[in-house]
């Protein structure tokens, strides 16, 4: 990361809006030197992540000394405003409630599966809050809380996991990609959305989300490289929750950190405490601002922890110790924020009660929405394969309709004969 938040990148990619590749060569040669010129720091300060993950509020809820927050050149971060922090805390509490409610609904058989982001709520909330209305987000299957925090209806978000269709919201309307179950494929979609926006001269920023395991996939490499070569405003946000189902990070990568991977693409990388929403808002906020101002793509790695199993179908005790989980309980993103805001005098019992009530409302909405038996229409199978059904799909649709009609008729007949 490159500059203090007050700086503005000069010459925000002037002329590139209409000609993304005419200056490709120049862009890749100059990415580093341009930053040096703009921000007056060394190439290393620009490209390399800070020596330690940026942390502003520690696990005990105390504000770190300014010198410990991130003081290296190119890695100086300011504190987000009080209103922003309170809004973020509210979303944190809602996010935790959503995670726990959904896990309960899976146990009750109301949803097929739910990959919980319990413990990662700070990343989820910051991902949504760092974006403006015209920006896009490309989430993974574990990012339901981020999708909801972006404003998508909770029940629509859960449609994928309820099992009546593969997605429940309109990606274009919300500027949120469909939650992606194949790993990292969505990063390239993010690159494409950013590229199209840039060609039209729009100032859209795209947040492309993935996990630590996903950084081993080929599409991770291709997406970062494409974004860098075309100098696109994409912020790659890696939630390093330490496990890819059962496989720990050490088996995925021996890079100094995942944020260091940015250097190989000629982009800046930063790492941040993923359980400190104050630091996340500062780091992601600045990354989005830089991307919007024309600095090209950036990579942010958040260090966090998947507190629960991969999904309800997984047994985490087979591959990790309870003691390790306990260590991360002490770093919980909610409790530290509650302590911090209470100490600051921003959060009192009334405020906490109001926020808890809001969370309960969302939980009730989920219980009600997912408790409902939504009728499925078998003819939907054929409706959305193409813009208009092919003759073959029409035949198959008629065949299924006929089967169902005969089933219904024979059910009526056997009912009558039973009488």
């Amino acid at each position, binding site marked *: 990361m490159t500059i203090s938040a007050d700086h503005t990148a000069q010459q925000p990619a002037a002329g590139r809006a209409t000609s993304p590749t005419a200056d490709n060569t120049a862009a890749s040669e100059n990415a580093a030197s341009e930053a040096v010129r703009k921000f007056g720091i060394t190439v290393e300060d620009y490209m390399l992540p800070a020596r330690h993950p940026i942390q502003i509020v520690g696990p005990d809820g105390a504000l770190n000394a300014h010198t410990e927050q991130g003081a290296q050149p190119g890695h100086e971060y300011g504190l987000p405003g009080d209103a922003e922090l309170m809004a973020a805390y509210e979303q944190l509490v809602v996010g935790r409630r959503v995670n726990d409610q959904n896990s309960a609904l899976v146990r009750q058989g109301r949803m097929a599966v739910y990959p919980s982001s319990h413990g990662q709520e700070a990343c989820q909330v910051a991902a949504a809050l760092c974006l403006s209305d015209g920006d896009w987000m490309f989430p993974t299957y574990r990012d339901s809380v981020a999708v909801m925090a972006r404003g998508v209806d909770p029940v629509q978000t859960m449609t994928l996991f309820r099992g009546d269709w593969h997605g429940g919201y309109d990606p274009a309307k919300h500027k949120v990609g469909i939650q992606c179950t194949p790993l990292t494929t969505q990063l390239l979609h993010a690159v494409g*959305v950013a590229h199209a926006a840039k060609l039209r001269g729009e100032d859209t920023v795209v947040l492309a989300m993935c996990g630590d395991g996903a950084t081993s996939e080929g*599409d991770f490499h291709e997406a970062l490289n494409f974004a860098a070569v075309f100098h696109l405003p994409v912020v790659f946000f890696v939630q390093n929750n330490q496990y890819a189902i059962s496989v720990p990070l050490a088996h995925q990568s021996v890079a100094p950190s995942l944020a260091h991977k940015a250097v190989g693409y000629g982009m800046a990388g930063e790492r941040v405490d993923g359980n400190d929403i104050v630091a996340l808002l500062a780091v992601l906020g600045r990354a989005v601002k830089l991307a919007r101002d024309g600095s090209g793509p950036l990579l942010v790695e958040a260090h966090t922890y998947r507190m629960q199993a991969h999904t309800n179908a997984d047994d985490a005790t087979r591959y990790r110790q309870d003691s390790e989980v306990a260590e991360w309980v002490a770093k919980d993103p909610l409790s530290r924020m509650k302590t911090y805001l209470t100490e600051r005098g921003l959060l009192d019992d009334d405020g906490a009660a109001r926020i808890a009530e809001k969370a309960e409302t969302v939980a009730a909405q989920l219980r009600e929405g997912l408790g409902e038996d939504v009728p499925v229409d078998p003819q939907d199978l054929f409706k959305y394969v*193409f813009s208009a059904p092919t003759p073959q799909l029409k035949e198959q649709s008629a065949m299924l309709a006929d089967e169902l009609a005969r089933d219904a008729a024979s059910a009526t007949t056997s009912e009558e004969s039973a009488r």
Partner: protein
Amino acid sequence: MSPTVTTSSEANNNVSAATARAAAKAAVEAEKTGPQTITLAKALNTAMADAMHADDSVLVFGEDVGMLGGVFRITDGLTKTFGQSRCFDTPLAESGIVGMAVGMAMNGMRPVIEMQFDAFAYPAFEQIVSHVAKMHNRTKGTVKLPIVIRVPYAGGIGGVEHHCDSSEAYYAHTAGLKVFTPATVADGYRMLREAIDSDDPVMFMEPKKLYWSKDQVDLDALRAEHAANTERGTSSEGRAAVARPGTDATLIAYGPSVPTALAAAAAAAEEGRSLEVIDVRSIVPFDDETVCASVRKTGRAVVIAEAHGFASVASEIVARVQERCFHHLAAPIRRVTGFDVPYPAPKLEHYYLPGVDRILDAVDDLQWED
């Protein structure tokens, strides 16, 4: 209609005088009205240029498609005419090309992308199968992906390995992809325009051995036909063509095998046998009606394709036709396809490829004496 290729005003300093002269000559050629002799390559190039003139959201990108004009020169002149923002080279990564096209299509563009060779499209398989084909379905139709993935495919050009695969079955097997393959110069123009117009993703399989095949076509007439179709909301999409009428048996072929089938029909005619040749054109959607009408008329059929026969498009066609035409058949339907072996080295490919003799042998086997 506007001229279709490069204009000299856009020629930049990097272009040699010879190239500029060639471009100017090409522009003059393209402005000629009435029937003219052009290649399939030129028809495809003109279709892209016309589509780009008609709609700013049509973009062309891939490997070497920019200044070089593609390794087969199908995108020749597009960068010069439309600029780097409309036709450009990407880093060398096929999954990246397709994945980026998905995002661009989600955000209002109509990407026409080139996979350099059939077998080099395989790194993009996940993006094609899991996203290009399914996005419309997953989002209940709210996200449409008007992407054309151009794939130079099949052999017969003496290419080294991985440059001659017939990969159409992989795509035809994937629900949500349309699969077109032109066999004539006119269809090169007509079908690529229709593919670019389609709101659904299209795998556009270009028989590379036919790139330099020539035919007399009237580009202005094709443009007028396209305009009239657009006006009426009609198209030739999903329709097979009778490439040669006949009465005794039907040869069903597509893409690179259509000229071979026509040659076989011409040879059979000399022996007094009248073969009808059907050019499938659109593998998905498939035109059961035209194919079956022909087979019901002739009572005999041979399906011809370069791809391996096992679990192939040719197998699907046989199954479909016998399900629908069983009582009209005088003999079992035969397939003449590539052998079930990896595509052979150049000096062996003529043993592998379906040829006139092998097709005529299959026709001879259609129980004529019974």
